[in-house]
């Protein structure tokens, strides 16, 4: 029997076994589908969050707020000094008057609030643009700390700080997803292994005959390996389908919602789909191989006569 003939035979037998024991097989398929879905969902969500972080990083602001009564001349001097800082592309001076005007433009209904306060209620500031927001020079942090300690400065507002916290959250999320996915995958492997062992047990009479007439181990085990592979493949297809369906539903239903942006801004890539399905099939095959390795498919016959 050629290798191709053998493989065709394995898959035909495996399909017959799957059809015969479809209820048990369904449990194995669903277990692996759930594990891949959970792992895949965490992967997609963390991927989308990281994409959002990258997007926000480009829009990140770095602002040095000065004391309210800082004279314009001092503001100009400080701005000139700030331009010499590490990784700084430009520094825009925002006077107290400009700050008030911006506030009134941004919040017209609150315009009267700042008008009635007499003196300029908002402090002047220095708005700093970095030459590369994604790659800050290491000296920038100490440089900002030094500014925080200066008497003319009331506050330094750095978006980078909360983006850093968000990145930590994403990393934790990804680790939790990975751990959960791996745990569920182990459960799926165990389930597939048990189903394959059960199938092998139900076919022990046939295995005994196959061995008796001279079938090789490869020929005997092949259908069981193919069955595990198919269960994993089906699980992978189900998980991928559910992830794709879920993210498509979110995008169609409320494309602008924050939840959609965070969870489903990007659809699954072809590589991710292939990886999930491939992982399912590989897990199924691994479950079958490990279960039959332990079982050894040994048919014992007691000596009688």
């Amino acid at each position, binding site marked *: *029997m050629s290798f191709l003939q053998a493989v065709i035979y394995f898959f035909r037998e495996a399909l017959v076994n799957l059809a015969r024991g479809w209820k048990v097989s369904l449990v194995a398929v669903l277990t692996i589908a759930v594990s891949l879905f959970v792992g895949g969902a965490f992967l997609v969500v963390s991927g989308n969050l990281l994409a959002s972080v990258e997007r926000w990083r480009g829009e990140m602001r770095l602002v040095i707020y000065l004391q309210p009564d800082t004279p314009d001349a001092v503001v100009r001097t400080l701005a000139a000094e700030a331009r010499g800082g590490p990784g700084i592309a430009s520094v825009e001076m925002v006077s107290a008057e400009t700050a008030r005007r911006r506030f009134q433009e941004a919040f017209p209904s609150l315009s009267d609030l700042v008008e009635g306060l007499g003196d300029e209620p908002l402090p002047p500031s220095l708005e700093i643009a970095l030459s590369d927001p994604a790659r800050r020079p290491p000296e920038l942090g100490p440089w900002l700390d030094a500014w925080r300690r200066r008497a003319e400065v009331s506050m330094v507002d750095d978006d980078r700080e909360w983006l850093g916290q968000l990145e930590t959250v994403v990393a934790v999320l990804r680790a939790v997803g990975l751990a959960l996915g791996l745990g569920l995958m182990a459960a799926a492997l165990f389930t597939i292994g048990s189903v394959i062992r059960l199938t092998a047990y139900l076919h022990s009479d046939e295995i005994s005959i196959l061995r*008796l*007439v*001279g*079938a090789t*181990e490869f020929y005997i085990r092949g259908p069981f390996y193919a069955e595990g592979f198919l269960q994993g493949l089906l699980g992978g297809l189900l998980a991928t389908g559910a992830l794709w369906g879920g993210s498509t539903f979110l995008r169609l239903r409320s494309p602008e919602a924050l939840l959609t942006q965070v969870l489903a801004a990007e659809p699954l890539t072809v590589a991710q789909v292939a990886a999930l399905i491939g992982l399912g099939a590989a897990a199924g095959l691994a479950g079958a191989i490990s279960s039959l390795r332990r079982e050894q498919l040994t048919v014992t016959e007691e*000596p009688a*006569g």
Partner: protein
Amino acid sequence: MIQFFQVTKRYPGGQIALERVSFDIPRGQFVFLTGASGSGKTSLLRLIFRADVPTEGQILVNGRNVSSIPLQKIPYLRRSIGVVFQDFRLIPRKTVFENVTYLPRILGTDLSSRKKMAYQALRRVGLAHRLNAFPLELSGGEQQRVAIARALINEPEILIADEPTGNLDPDLSWEILRLFLEVNLRGTTVLLATHDRDMIHRVGRRVLTLEAGRLSSDQELPGTEPPRLDEPASERGPELDFEPDVPPEFEGPGFEEPE
């Protein structure tokens, strides 16, 4: 063909199944292996097709030392040995055709050739008409004949039978025995284990007797009423044809390989 040299088989619990057993069965011989239950008959047969290995001694089958065959080569040894058991060992969910054609299928024989081989093997045992039946639809005698057809389908050099008539009534036993004798006439070496001494004495032939694992006698019996093998078996049909043409109904759409 089958040579045992001082073979001892001891099981892990210390039970001795065979002790210093030696014999030589030449090619084409028909040999009865007899002895009481527990005398070691099954253990001896299992050693021949390497279902087990001897604790001591050497076994040569067709010149090959069975004990030293690597595990991955055992299937090739078994393909040259047909084995029949008392309990038939047919797969109830498979048809007669599927049960009989396990070995050709393993060997990658195409469906058309498998049909011809199955037909020929079943014709030899008088069951060509039950190709699509399931084992449980057959009588005990018919099931044993299917098991014999399975053992014969690849024209093995050796046929081993472990109490093949143990579950059958005397008339059916006689029919089955005739089949083994016919197979032997075609040159196949036959080793048949039975405790039916009456049958052995009627048929004659070489008889190996085991007692508590030891070969107590190796004798040639003349036979009181050996069967006439020129007469066809009752259920076979009008004529025994070892190389039959496959009738058209076996090539047509009515004969499909079951899934």
